[in-house]
């Protein structure tokens, strides 16, 4: 079976190039290992657990984010690195942004509260806390590709997970940090939700964060903009 791989090696060329390989394995990760071991030992990609839980082998197949260990290939499929990250070599991208956005949005438990957590409270954040940090959602996000300051779906879902945690006593702090380059910049296209290998619905988490923001006295800046344009007193 023939597959195509988008390659990049700055020591060979400044440009990306597509290379075709004849492979036996249909499992993408096995196919990538086959390419590396049989054709080109310099071919680079990340992988780890082979069971879809470490998140390290996220790539794109025909433009859609997938975990290599989980997805099957078909004739002529095109494999590419994740979008919205600097490509280091072949399918390996620089993931340092993740730490940056966690920090920027306080996507962690800030101050422990000894509130009672019920069985049902736990269920509210169960799905979000299954995130494997594979960055598929971030890669699929059209806003992240035009605004490098956009906090992005990975961290926004994580913010939601900590805000909803009854053990967090400083939930409101986090809302403050995601007003700009955060929840209101999202176009609600739902790409993130579509590609999440864990079935996490970041789009819906972002919508809920908007609702929570309004309930906490924040305003929707997108509405304010149109309001200003129509009723701007300076315009009279």
């Amino acid at each position, binding site marked *: 079976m023939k597959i195509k791989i988008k390659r990049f090696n700055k020591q060979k060329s400044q440009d990306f190039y597509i290379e075709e390989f004849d492979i036996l394995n249909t499992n993408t990760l096995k196919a990538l290992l086959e390419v590396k071991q049989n054709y080109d030992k310099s071919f680079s990609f990340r992988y780890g657990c082979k*069971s*879809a839980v470490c998140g390290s082998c996220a790539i794109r197949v025909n433009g859609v984010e997938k975990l290599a260990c989980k997805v099957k290939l078909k004739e002529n499929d095109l494999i590419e690195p994740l979008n919205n990250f600097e490509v280091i070599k072949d399918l390996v991208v620089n993931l*340092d942004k993740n730490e940056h956005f966690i920090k920027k949005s306080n996507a962690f438990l800030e101050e422990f509260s000894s509130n009672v957590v019920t069985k049902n409270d736990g269920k509210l954040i*169960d799905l979000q806390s299954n995130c494997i940090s594979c960055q598929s959602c971030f890669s699929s996000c059209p806003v992240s590709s035009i605004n490098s300051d956009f906090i992005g779906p990975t961290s926004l879902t994580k913010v939601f997970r900590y805000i909803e945690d009854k053990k967090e006593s400083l939930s409101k702090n986090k809302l403050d940090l995601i007003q700009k380059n955060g929840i209101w910049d999202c176009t609600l296209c739902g790409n993130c939700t579509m590609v999440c290998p864990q079935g996490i619905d970041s789009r819906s988490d972002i919508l809920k964060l908007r609702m929570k923001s309004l309930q906490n006295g924040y305003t929707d800046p997108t509405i304010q903009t149109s309001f200003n344009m129509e009723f701007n007193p300076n315009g009279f």
Partner: protein
Amino acid sequence: MYDVVVIGSGAAGLTAALEAKEQGFSVLVISKNYPTFSQSCQAQGGINAILDESNDSIDDFVSDTFIASRKISNKKRIRKFCELSKDSILWLNKLGVPFTRDENNNIAQRRFGGTSKKRTCYSSDYTGLKIINTLYDTCVKNDIEFLHEEFLLDIAVENGVANAVITLNINKMKVSKYPTSNIILATGGYSNIFSLNTTNSYLTTADGLAIAYKNKAKLSNLEFVQFHPTVLKETNILISESARGEGGYLLDKNSNRFIDELKTRDEVAREVYKRVVKGEEVFLDLRHLGEEKIDELLPQERTIALNFANTDILNEPLSIGVAAHYTMGGILVDENMQTTIKNLYAIGECAQASIHGANRLGGNSLLEVIGLSREVVKSFNKDKIVCNIDIKKYQKEIDELMHKEIKVDFYKVKEQLSQILFEKASIIKSNSSLNEVLEFINEQKNNLKYMGIEDKSTYYNRNLVDFYEFKNLLLISELYIKSAISRNESRGSHYKLDYEYEDESFEKETIIENQDNDAFIYFEEIK
């Protein structure tokens, strides 16, 4: 200069880093990976603890752990470990780990094999994943400094004192040294010697063990490798012990149960293996648990079975096999987690802390990485240190590798090694089969001069790192085989056809010493 350098960013490394920072030490975490990608995310079932002494007791916990270890563990250390359990859970809870709760809003506990009580705390069946992500978020919160994709090349040891870590930055291909008076190895186990038959991540390659040994730290109990009795056939993907803990059945080819599913892993694995080698199918049957229970308590198992075996566990039994899962042996440490080299500590799966002995109980590994990794900080050295090691030789070695002609493909040898180890030196072995493997290993050690790297790029050269990892695995395979040959008895996970009984004279820990690059193996009484 940092006060503490942690190698490895799994749950053990991150825990030690957080605790060290909390205690006011400056900390650097060096990892060949990214933290959230580490092996720890694969720990599914849970973490053991005594939360309520009216239901369970430290004494029972100590006794269960000691019995499972087949008497080759240190009761005093097990007791300390058990006593740390409640605090470890409360600490994780405070950081935000979303433990599953019971009807009374307490942290829920399930029953694992080898225990009489429900003692295992969990977050559905994603316990390790949720722990590692929460630890990482907390590290970001606490400004822990990381070096990602930085590979451990060596540790500098002068006059018996470790004083620096020598690493290779995979992207820049730059060799660096980080002098420090406290080095912590948190580099994981060695199940990848069985690389084709392990539940472990490709990246868990025994680097810490190999480098500690080369620098003459003592290793211990390497013959004890735990095989997991329920992994997906062919893919070796782990199906958590929680599946049996929640009531799953093991069925033979005639759909009959053949063992009490909650016996310890060594016993269950042996019974499964005996059928697998005969070419018979073995199944894990969860159908009777019902959809609601499965979706609430075993969601990951259902997804894995669907994605990787095309089986819906609600309607069909799952075809399973056995695979290397956890390695009880490791770098020998004392009660402070210090190795036999001053200033060098080992925590988590790479350490042999005299707790698991010949067989680890499910739920005890996560407790070890949290409980003992917090404790290690207590004995840290506060003095500054001087390091005189010249790192030019490491760069020179890499330059030579870049120009070396290659006649043997080490990737193929790695697969052959895994195959021969699984066939002749895994769940059931004998001295003759072990010696056959040793012969193969010696041959490959000779062949090392024909192996090397084909990728000549001077940035992000993963081929080079793969080669270093392979050499580490080959070395540890040799020590594993030699340890297994030395222990002429059957005990826990170590089962020999020519010695099918426990021998009291081996109620001791195996010690492996590097004497002039040759392994000297002897046995020491449990203190």
